[in-house]
């Protein structure tokens, strides 16, 4: 296996608040291969978005990366200065946000916002930038790129805003695109279009994607591998098909069982209880208070993420090797 494009090693991000230290990310590790689409799934507050921001080195105080390393294309991003990171953001690694409406500047036209990113990272004239922008806009399926460019964000629909965000993210042809819930707040039909667009861009521009979402349906169709996060830790890493066919970790099993299905006449069984507060994680395995298989050992000892089989790994004592 070749060197992975991105390697997150034992990353720990803590937020020191008035009430104590919130461990938003508590020692997670995963790898992203070249050209791969990796899904990062988990409930709200499981630390997925923070992980995404950490890759871009944009954790704002009071948050802090306290341990661990992020290695991108062989270099550690943690050692980069702010100036060097500014050159990486947008051109090598870029991000697509949820809720495109609030993530576009309301007083600038879409065209100007897109050009700004391109001009920042490339030594080109504004005329060349706008030519490139028009080409990219027609590539993402916008019929009239010139008219679209002159619009302000409030003048176009949510799906169109997201397309503009996507163009902003990929205009410099980054190697890695982090999409943080790119389809939240969009219609189901538009969701599908956006997901297809992302997949198409990945293939055509040979980029690697990390898809952060809580929607298992979205990752099921587009991602090669899935990292399941729960309470700041990675619970399971599996190729998509195996994860859905034969989930290993009790949390993943519970998650899949709580999805309503129309093909079988059975009520979904939700997981009992709630996600533990980030300030007060349970001892041992963070999932043990809600786990059906939990035993005494789970309350004291934290299971490590260990390889199981076929490139899969899980953090549970009771998964057969």
């Amino acid at each position, binding site marked *: 296996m070749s060197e992975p494009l991105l390697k997150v090693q034992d990353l720990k991000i803590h937020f020191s608040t008035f009430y104590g230290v919130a461990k938003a990310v508590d020692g997670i590790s995963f790898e992203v291969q070249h050209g791969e689409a990796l899904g990062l799934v988990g409930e709200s507050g499981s630390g997925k978005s923070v992980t995404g921001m950490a890759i*871009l080195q*944009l954790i704002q105080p009071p948050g802090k990366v306290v341990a661990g390393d992020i290695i991108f294309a062989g270099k550690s991003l943690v050692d980069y200065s702010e100036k060097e*990171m*500014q*050159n*990486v*953001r*947008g*051109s090598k690694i*870029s*991000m697509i*946000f949820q*809720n495109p409406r*609030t*993530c*576009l*500047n*309301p*007083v*600038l036209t879409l065209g100007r916002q897109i050009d*700004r*990113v391109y001009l*920042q*990272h490339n030594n080109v004239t504004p005329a060349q930038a706008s030519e490139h922008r028009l080409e990219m806009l027609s590539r993402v399926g916008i019929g009239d790129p010139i008219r679209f460019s002159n619009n302000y964000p409030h003048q176009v629909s949510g799906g169109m805003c997201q397309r503009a*965000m996507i163009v*902003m*993210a990929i205009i410099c042809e980054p190697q890695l695109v982090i999409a943080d819930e790119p389809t939240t707040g969009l219609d189901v039909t538009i969701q599908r279009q956006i997901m297809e667009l992302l997949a198409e861009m990945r293939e055509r521009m040979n980029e690697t994607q990390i898809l952060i979402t809580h929607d298992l349906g979205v990752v099921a169709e587009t991602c090669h591998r899935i990292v399941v996060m729960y309470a700041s830790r990675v619970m399971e890493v599996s190729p998509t098909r195996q994860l859905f066919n034969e989930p290993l970790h009790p949390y993943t099993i519970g998650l899949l069982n709580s999805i309503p299905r129309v093909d079988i006449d059975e009520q979904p069984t939700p997981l009992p209880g709630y996600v533990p507060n980030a300030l007060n994680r349970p001892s041992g395995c963070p999932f043990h208070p809600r786990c059906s298989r939990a035993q005494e050992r789970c309350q004291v000892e934290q299971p490590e993420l260990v390889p199981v089989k076929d490139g899969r790994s899980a953090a549970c004592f009771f998964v057969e090797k």
Partner: protein
Amino acid sequence: MDQVYPLKRPSIWHVIKVFMRRYDFEIYLLRRNPVTLLGLGIIVLVTLIAIFAPILAPYDPLALTSADRLMGPSAVHWMGTDDYGRDILSRVIYATRLDMVIATSAVSMAMFIGVILGAVAGFFGGIIGEVIMRILDVIQAFPAFILAMALAVSLGSGKMTIIYVVAFIMVPIFARLMRSEILSARGRGYIEAAHCMGASEMEIIFKQLIPNCITPILVQFALSMSYAILDAAALSFIGLGIRPPEAEWGSMVNAGVGYITSGQLWLSVFPGLVMAIAILGFNLLADGMRDVLDPKLRS
């Protein structure tokens, strides 16, 4: 087969209508606020008078004609003459020019400096922000006009002095306004997105945040114009600003004060009246602008 309708050549009225429709909403808002329109009209008129002062003034504002001393308003001298026989209408017209230049420069300068200071203080916060805001607090702790007087005395009289002094006492207003706007805007999604796209801090402040926060600043600009006119006139009235031979509203009022008791009211009344109308214009416009630019205040 479909019938082909020949295209009619659009009439000039149609062209005007289409053009008006582009600004439909703005025109509608102005129509609902006729006082705003009045304010705008006054300001346009005052500005035109200021620009075309040499053409409009019937006499030289500085020419002394001792034979025509203290003449009341007449067909020859519409606003009468002063104690040196100078035509008051001409002097008021030239004073409009001078006062508008002073007010516009002073407020522009205050806005420019205030916006930058406020933006930096709001965006970075921390020690930089505290230092900037505390210095501005010190300026605001003085009664504004007393501070202006003290500065004007120490800087000496003249047009530039008034501009600097008025700008100086207005900087904190703009800075505070900008800071509060930036504080509420800097946590929004598009700022985070700009960070993620690799924009530098300076770029985020000047190209993303300031354009988003400029609306209340524009309202404050119009409002400050009236204060600037008043301050400039007041400084000249007490003899700290523009020196007497030159025509300025405040110094003209001052020059006429001694003649009010003897019934020669026109010396003070006309410059005072024009000044009041100009200030009214800016206040009305500021009020209307706030209604137009801030949808929350629309009833």
